[in-house]
């Protein structure tokens, strides 16, 4: 069986302007959504607060739960039903750090029983203090940054044999970021600045493959973040794990195309670069789509059957795989052509 016939030749490169426009539009939507929502919606892992999952013996109105919460001093808690409706699970979120108080769960159970006349069972409590939340936020940003940086060293080294150049550059960036972070600069700003510096350096040092890969990665992660923001979903630790996995996955795709480009550059050195890139994308197209398909199949199984806790994680991964597949065809490879225009103008 074959979905993609051998010898297929779709002209991806010619449509790259359209693809760039689509990507740009998605990125603008991401920015707007983040601006309107005033940044990502942080879950309690990052914002601090308390999350309580309660299972009731029967279905209860949310208003009743809220009344019960009011009795224990949680007026501003938000309540929503969680997972499948048949299990009567509810999530309570509050920015208070009540659980540290002695006897909290006892009084909560009592208040909820009185207010709802159903039997509540506290299945999960997560309380994160503001300091821990802030620490985790910074750690998450650093993790993303270092993952990107290490990966670019690897790509520059493997594809352009510029191990030392990229290593020195990455080392300098890491040192600068570390040094500046000692002065209590906002970590988000710092890392955004470091990424921009990285891109500019790649551009001037003509680290084409690394540039293509990192632009694709930033593109994928940003758009996933944007879609999460649009749907008003929460950022939690597992979502950061999903984003890092997306980085790994999307790169996987990109590298396979790059590998083929490098091979074809040797094989058909007379052909023009756009032709070679297009041929490489077509030759690997079957594999790109197949792998995305099998990955999507298991992710869908996880999304549908995995239960509430893993729901958002698998959703983030699904978006990431879709966008990662798109970007390795339409974003990463066409960027290799960016230097062509510059060379011609000289």
């Amino acid at each position: 069986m074959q979905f993609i016939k051998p010898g297929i030749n779709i002209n991806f490169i010619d449509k790259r302007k359209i693809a760039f426009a689509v990507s740009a539009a998605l990125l603008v939507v991401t920015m707007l959504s983040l601006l309107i929502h005033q940044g990502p919606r942080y879950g309690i892992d990052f914002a601090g607060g308390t999350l309580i999952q309660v299972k009731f013996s029967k279905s209860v109105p949310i208003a009743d739960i809220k009344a019960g919460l009011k009795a224990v001093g949680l007026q501003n808690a938000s309540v929503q039903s969680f997972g499948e409706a048949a299990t009567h699970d509810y999530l309570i979120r509050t920015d208070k750090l009540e659980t540290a108080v002695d006897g909290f769960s006892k009084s909560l159970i009592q208040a909820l029983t009185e207010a709802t006349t159903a039997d509540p069972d506290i299945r999960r409590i997560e309380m994160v203090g503001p300091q821990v939340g802030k620490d985790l936020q910074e750690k998450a940003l650093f993790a993303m940054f270092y993952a990107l940086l290490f990966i670019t060293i690897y790509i520059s080294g493997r594809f352009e044999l510029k191990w030392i150049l990229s290593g020195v550059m990455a080392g300098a960036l890491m040192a600068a970021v570390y040094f500046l972070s000692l002065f209590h600069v906002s970590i988000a700003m710092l890392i955004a600045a470091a990424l921009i510096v990285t891109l500019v350096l790649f551009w001037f040092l003509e680290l084409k493959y690394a540039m293509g890969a990192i632009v694709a990665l930033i593109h994928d992660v940003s758009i996933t973040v944007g879609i999460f923001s649009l749907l008003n979903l929460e950022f939690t630790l597992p979502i950061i794990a999903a984003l890092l996995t997306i980085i790994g996955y999307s790169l996987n795709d990109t590298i396979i195309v790059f590998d083929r480009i490098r091979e074809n550059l040797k094989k058909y050195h007379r052909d023009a670069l756009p032709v070679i890139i297009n041929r490489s994308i077509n030759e690997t197209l079957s594999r790109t789509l197949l792998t995305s398909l099998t990955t999507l199949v298991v992710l869908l199984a996880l999304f549908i059957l995995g239960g509430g806790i893993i729901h958002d994680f698998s959703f983030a991964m699904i978006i990431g795989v879709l966008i990662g597949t798109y970007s390795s065809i339409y974003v990463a490879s066409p960027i290799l052509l960016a230097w062509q225009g510059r060379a011609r103008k000289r």
Partner: protein
Amino acid sequence: MKHISWRLIVIVAVIAAAVVYVLPTLNSSLWPHKSINLGLDLQGGMHLVLQVDTQKAVESTLARISHEMRAQARKARIKYQKIDLAGANAIAVEISGQENIDQFEAMLDDDFRELRIADRQATDGRLNLTLDLPQTETERIRKMAAAQALETIRNRIDQFGVSEPDIRRQGQERILIQLPGIEDTERAKQLIGKTAQLEFKLVDEAHDLDTALKGDVPAGSEILYQIKEDPQTRRVQRTPFLIKKRGMLTGAYLTEARVEIDSQYNDPYVSIKFDKKGARIFERITADNVKKRLAIVLDDTVYSAPVIQEKISGGEARITGSFTAEEARDLAIVLRAGALPAPVNILEERTVGPSLGNDSIRKGLMSMLVGGLLVVVFMVIYYRGAGLVADVALILNILLIAGGLAAFQATLTLPGIAGIILTIGMAVDANVLIFERIREELGLGKTPHAAVDAGYNRATLTILDANVTTLIAALVLFQFGTGPVKGFAVTLSLGVLSSLFTALILTRAIFDFFLINRKVKTISI
């Protein structure tokens, strides 16, 4: 063929090792007794991060020193206007009269060498001193306090009886506690978080309690409460006491604390026993204060305040209160394990009930099964015979990850299961790459044997490159992650490694077996 035989040995060894490590999870009596650890999110339990308020330890050290200083000054008949804490980190001293000043400074040099003179002002026979602890000393106190708190908490949890607790320092002042399978989290939290500062103090009977309650608290005394809960009505009753601030004796001298049952009312109480020195102090206090009330105060709450009937020698006492059996038992544990050198605050708490953990395991395994089956069926339909080879690799992958988890004693979490599921999707990737390459080579008219050779040779480097980057992301994730996320990083890394092994070594060996040993002339791909 020699080439095949060493590969065969490696494959058999790896599979055998994986099987040996997986079996104990299914039947725990088997060697090597290392079953796969389930994370707190799967088996239920509690994860706590505590902050030790080490500043308080510094403060209480200073308070103790100023207390000693006053006592010594009184003993040496040095008249002073003030020896008191000034803010959190210093002691302020005010003395007038040259003779007093000279004596005091001599005493300071002899007995309080650890103090630093931060500020000294002498004006016409009046000396004002600000004393504090040098930086190295406060650092030492803070470190000691954190280390001691860790030790005390470990002690308490050991005595409480939790299987496989994980208690460790995190950074300078934080303590990470993981208690798997614990059900009464409320009780565990109280047990861990209690400072358990036991003090014996005299009740101030010279002053009137009512005037003190109106705000006129006499110097040297304070109002503390006794809190009693009626077990029937659950009404909480707070009784105020006027207690002298000066502690007569602390829990530091305890050697024993155990629960006993009152024969008359059948109420549990905690009986305590002092060491020799403590017993002597206790005897002196009781002898000096017959017919006065001695309050037993724990963490600034009065437990009881009995009247001393006669001198008590032997160093035994009992702490009564309206305890339940559990409360009495927990109190005995914290008293035995000793007081925390400084209070602790809960910074982070994650509790998962056992029912939710079971749900998560069931759902995780279910999605793994469904997702895995779909991929297996798809591979056979798309690649036929070769698809079957890939499926063998896939199933072996799961076995290898499970074996790896057990061998490295890693923890399986819910995101970890997600990582395995993801690996199922991505593990076929390496095979897809190879198969597509083989199809291309076959399309160029090569023989099956040559096509397989070329396919593997060309695809190997690509597969390595692609997987190394995923591995980089997974390792960064491992560095950054806590608990569940770390579990995800572990399974993802194991998945990448095992899929490299199955794709590059195992499936290759299977193809070679059919093409070379069995001399199969066509290839089903």
